[in-house]
């Protein structure tokens, strides 16, 4: 009896140590959990490699990245998933990430890869845009960003995200600086009276828009595809600016402290595979980074806008100043 007890104990211990270590992926919570792209990737990865993915989810990608900093050399993260380009600028020179071969990027839309960079692997992208409900508001065609607010009735309300707490908010701030230059302050001062509220995140802002409390909301050009596919509603539309839209690109990064870099590379390969990229549209409601991936027709109905050119070095150098200036200005201008 005692022998069998210790034998089973020993077997259990042996099995426990021989079970493969999962691949730990830090990401934001919409990418992990049930009915997400993360769940799909986990199932496929397990089939392909016999290894599970352990998603560690955070409120935002910024928090995920911050956790890696806090953990320092003790970090157990193998991959960071869902980091956008603006956030990446903050950390790209810290030597934290593994450089990958050119073959990793071969299948991607060529413009998505940052020049001279081999660590940030784009997996989806979208264009920022103001959305409106065509049953409640009308928008002039062929306008530029600087003209967005001109002609607004006094009662028209816009909801935007706070650049201090939201990636979307930061990107809109960068967009207005890059496109408007010296006209940045004037644009924001003219927008301010129409701002219903500056929401801390995307979901709060979108909720207000859906409940018809705001006429315009900052989101993505592809957001209407959700309503077309899931709700059969065609009244939510993006405002298109002739001078271009900011393109948000999300990527994956393999940490060079990871003890499972090979597995990390396999994960990235799976992420960029045709099968996985075909899921991006209806999980993320963004465009897949891989070129020539079949999209649902509702996505094809939405025109792809011109991309605003961004000087990332300038953004990296000046973003904090822009944020401070914006904060001070809005604290005075807001009623």
């Amino acid at each position, binding site marked *: 009896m005692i022998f069998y007890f210790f034998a089973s104990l020993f077997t259990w211990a042996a099995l426990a140590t021989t079970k493969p270590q999962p691949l*730990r992926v830090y990401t934001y*919570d*919409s990418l992990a*959990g*049930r*009915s*997400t792209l*993360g769940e799909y990737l986990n199932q496929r990865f397990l089939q392909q490699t016999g290894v599970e993915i*352990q998603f*560690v*989810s955070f*409120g*935002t990608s*910024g*928090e995920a*990245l*911050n*956790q890696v900093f*806090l*953990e320092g050399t*003790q*970090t*157990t993260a193998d991959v960071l998933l869902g980091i956008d380009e603006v*956030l990446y600028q*903050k*950390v790209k020179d810290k030597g934290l990430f593994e450089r990958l071969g050119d073959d990793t990027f071969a299948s991607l839309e060529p413009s998505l890869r940052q020049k001279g960079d081999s660590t940030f692997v784009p997996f989806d992208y979208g264009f920022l845009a103001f959305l409106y409900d065509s049953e409640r508001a009308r928008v002039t065609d062929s306008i530029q960003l600087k003209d967005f607010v001109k002609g607004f009735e006094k009662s028209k*309300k816009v909801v935007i995200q*706070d650049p*201090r*707490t939201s*990636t979307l908010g930061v990107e809109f701030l960068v967009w207005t600086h890059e496109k408007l230059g010296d006209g940045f302050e004037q644009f924001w001062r003219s927008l301010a009276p129409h*701002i*219903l*509220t*500056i*929401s*801390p*995140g*995307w*979901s*709060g802002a979108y*909720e*207000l828009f*859906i*409940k*018809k*409390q*705001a006429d315009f909301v900052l989101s993505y050009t592809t*957001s209407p595809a*959700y309503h077309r596919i*899931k709700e059969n509603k065609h009244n939510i539309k993006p405002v298109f600016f002739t001078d271009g839209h900011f393109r948000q690109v999300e990527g994956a990064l393999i940490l060079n402290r990871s003890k499972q870099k090979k597995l990390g590379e396999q994960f990235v390969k799976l992420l960029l595979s045709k099968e996985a990229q075909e899921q991006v549209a209806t999980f993320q409601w963004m465009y897949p980074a891989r070129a020539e991936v079949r999209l649902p027709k509702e996505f094809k109905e939405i025109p792809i806008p011109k991309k605003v050119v961004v000087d990332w070095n300038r953004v990296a150098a000046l973003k904090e100043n822009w944020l*401070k200036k*914006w*904060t*001070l200005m*809005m*604290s*005075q201008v*807001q*009623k």
Partner: protein
Amino acid sequence: MNWILSFPAFLILIMGFVAPLMFLFALGLRDFSDSVLRDPFLLYVIQFTYFQALVSSVLSVGFGFFTAWMIKEWRVRGGSWLWKICLLCSSLPAIIVALGILGTWGPGGLGSGILSGTRGVFGWTGIILGHVFLNFAIPLRLIGNALRERDRSAEMTALSLGMSRLAIFGQITLPKIKPSIVCSFILAFLFSSTSLFIVLFLGGGPRFTTLEVSLYEAIKLNLDNSRACQIASVQAIICTSILFLYLRSQKGSFLNEQVHRNGIFRPRTKWIETIGSCLMWSLVVFLIGLPLISILVDGVGVLHFLNLVELSRAALISLGIAFGVGVLSLAILYPLLHAVHHENSSKALKGLSWLVGLPQFFSSLVVALGLSVFYPSIRGNNLQAYLAIVVAQTLFVIPLIQFPLREGFQRYSKEQDLTAQSLGANRWQRFLWVEFPSMKRSLILSALIAAGFSLGEVATVLLFSPAEVQTLSLSIFQAMSRYRFQEAHAMTVILLVVMVLIFGVVGRLEEKDD
């Protein structure tokens, strides 16, 4: 023996709160520069934080006092229902409260006409409404209990000698309940100054930034841990000062006189009673009921969007965590309070026992940041994560449940214990057959409050949970971030119904003394 019984409480306090916080401050103060304090925007933020907290707490205490008076003294009709509804308010997740207020007072809402021509609900109006909604239950409970427990014989004597009721209130009643007013003001001030979601969602923008929001911003996107630690340090120093005020106000805040319950402030005619009751109910419906109705209206029509499998799973996990929190918090706090109230405990132990309330004086973001920094490897491992969530929530729950437990111990007299001992009962027999049965009501009350808090809590789940751990509250957040707003509204209704059930029982248990 006393110190052995107290050990678990102090252990969780030190390992779960003091040590992580000290570590956090060490990080923050290491790179501390006075540029933090010379930052004009930060100075504005400090000023705004405490000014809005002052206004919020004055109004919360005012409304809470009025409601407590109407329920406990005036004996407004339907008072027991009113009590339960009001208790429920303070336990709802802030995000749900914000949505309810937006639904009522936002553009297109029932009350939006009243706010037309102003900035609407966003800004000062929304922040004050939200804080009052969440915090008025503190003065309601503390002042309500003080009103109930006081000995009215002095008031009756004064009335019989010809003193006016107003004078009696000012000279006799008010001094008796003053400690509870001060105590509830301090707590309401503290919670208003450290609130996050109400300011984020109903404030909206840099003008309405508090220290908590600045901290949130530093952690969320700026990856500026140093600045976060510095802001946390500034906030913690102010919170500690508030803590001392609170501890001083504790003296005399517990009344247990239980003599002559009949009041002299009851309405003298049926007409006055009816008008008063209508006014009270109107006020509560206006300020509290409409946002709750708005949540229900939003959610009931879309219940068919619920994914029952996901919902059941999330509900089971939520209830499991809530159960764990209830059990752990009682297992830790009960022995400590038993030691304080029954053994020959030292003054030092009695004083130190109030330290278990420390976590409530610091922002949950600061505490969460401290835990995250001190125990960075907990995330991701399921078992450790569940344990961490339960322990972290227990830290926040212990300050809440110490009040009903202390009241229970106050009612369980030393003489009953001595009587049982003289009849031959040893320590364990006295605990099992006398103390525990008489504390049953307080224990159930505390467990329910702990469970209610846990069900609505999101911050610790967000902090520690692996992706598979989806509680009901977290599911609501995640549904909203994935365009599934109808599902989020439907789940909110479910959560609200569960909270109503829990706090219905809590209210019923509390009113048994009346």
